[in-house]
């Protein structure tokens, strides 16, 4: 499954992230994870949200420059070695990771590791073959409120 990540252009000055979260809060869009990558004078805010298409529409309407990117949200076990199994596999297959970040769903239970790679489809197939579960946007938004992982 492939998930959508929201990337927002931001000038490197105070209040840019706050401006984004304010709009999303008003629209009751839930943010699941955030990373910011910056260069000298500008940066990109990456967001995983429960409704990326609507988030893109409202942010664009507010004048922001927004793009939807395909990422893989991989379910991993939140215990020593959980992430290592994934990164070893990716390294072994020579897949270039452009951006990666993670967040814990249930302490000591499950975590989501988000990876941005050059060949999303190929990587997805590889991960599924090795028993990893990747989540799409719907699955991601369904998780949190219901402690979905505890089944």
């Amino acid at each position, binding site marked *: 499954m492939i998930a959508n990540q929201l*990337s*927002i*252009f931001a*000038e490197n000055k105070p209040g840019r992230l706050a401006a984004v979260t304010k709009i999303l809060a008003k629209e009751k869009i839930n943010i699941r994870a955030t990373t910011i990558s910056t260069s000298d004078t500008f940066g990109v805010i990456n967001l995983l949200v429960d409704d990326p298409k609507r988030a893109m529409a409202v942010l664009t309407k507010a004048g922001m*420059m*927004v*793009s939807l990117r395909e990422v893989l949200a991989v379910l991993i076990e939140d215990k020593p070695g959980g992430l290592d199994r994934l990164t070893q596999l990716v390294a072994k297959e020579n897949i270039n990771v452009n951006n990666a970040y993670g967040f814990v769903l249930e302490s000591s239970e499950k975590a989501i590791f988000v990876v941005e790679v050059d060949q999303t489809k190929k990587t997805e197939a590889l991960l599924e073959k090795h028993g990893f579960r990747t989540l799409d946007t719907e699955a991601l938004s369904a998780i949190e409120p219901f402690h979905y992982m505890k089944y």
Partner: protein
Amino acid sequence: MYWDEREETVEQARLQETQMEGLRETLRRAQGSSYYRDLFKDRRLQIDDIRKLADIEMLPLTTKDDLREHWPWGFVAVAREELIRMHSSSGTTGRATVIFHTANDIKAWTHLVARSMYMTGMRRGDVFQNMMTYGLFTGGLGFHYGAEEIGALVIPAGAGNSKRQIQLICDFGTTFIHIIPSYALYLSTVFDEMHVDPRKDTKLKAAFIGAEPHSEKMRRTIEDLYGFKAYNSYGLSEMNGPGVAFECPCQNGLHIWEDQFLVEIIDPLTGKPLADGQEGELVMTTLKREGMPLIRYRTKDLTRIIPGPCDCGRTHRRIERIKGRTDDMMIIKGVNIFPIQIEKRLMEIPGVGTNFLVLLDREGYDDYMNVQVEVKREFFTGDLKQLEKLRRRIVEELKSDILITPRVDLVAPDSLPKTEGKAVRVIDNRKD
């Protein structure tokens, strides 16, 4: 094809004879103004000393400061009751200058605007929407009168209110528009928002673009966005306003109407005349104006005369699109730079949006140039590396043209300041 064939295709030799008659008449009329009467007396100049066109070099240049100092009546050469119209220049610094017209002046001006518009294909029955500010600014009434003279249906829309502009274009089948180039770029985004395709859903045939210097690339961008021809219009209120020089269908330089203006190009630093083909400051003398004749007026606009005849058959010489203004020129680390040079470079780089802003700062004895560039919305994919690459490319391209290394910032589309749709290009924070 011609509004007046005899006038527009007159032989250069005959044209020069008319110019000489016009010049003599202007010198005679100018004696009616206190400014020129005193000036001629102080310099011991006699009208009879001017025997041929080249003798004009003996006469002093007139500057905008002269107009300001002798504001408001010092240049008026006729009785006050002869004046029927005043206009004012859109000066950004100091007191605005005023220009007065007699009834004949308005007629002569209207004739030039009609000639210019007709040249691009406007005819009786066309619908002309004028998106310029009406009022003291000459771009409103100047074009308005010219279009009426041709017999077009004129929609005096005025500036701004983008959605209404588009509504008018659609409702009344507008075929020609007059628009500021940076506003044309902005308006195309409003067309998108309203889901109206200017290429398919309108009857637009052509646009007249002027009132701010722009590059060839910017013109082509506008033509692509709208699917029409965009003709460059040049004018300044001191020489009436629009209708001074205008592009013909060849779109290779602007015919400057030499039956009403005597044209010189001078070196802006020394004031010495330059030959055809050489770039310098445009200097103009009115040949038919009654109310306020001006002799050797420094336009502060930089251009050159394009040597050789034009394929359209008109004999009036052509000037190249304005390269910049002598007072827009920035001097940074001893290098002369014009905003139009920066614009030209930027517009050639894929990913660059519609606006940019140059900030000049001084730290100690060193000057710094910071260029903020809007990114094109479609270019952004969320990839930081791609943005960094664009930024580096802009630095390199600018460096190769202006010879100093600017600091370049990328900013979001539509985030840079605009005043009345006209882009602000340079902010100089250096203190002397």
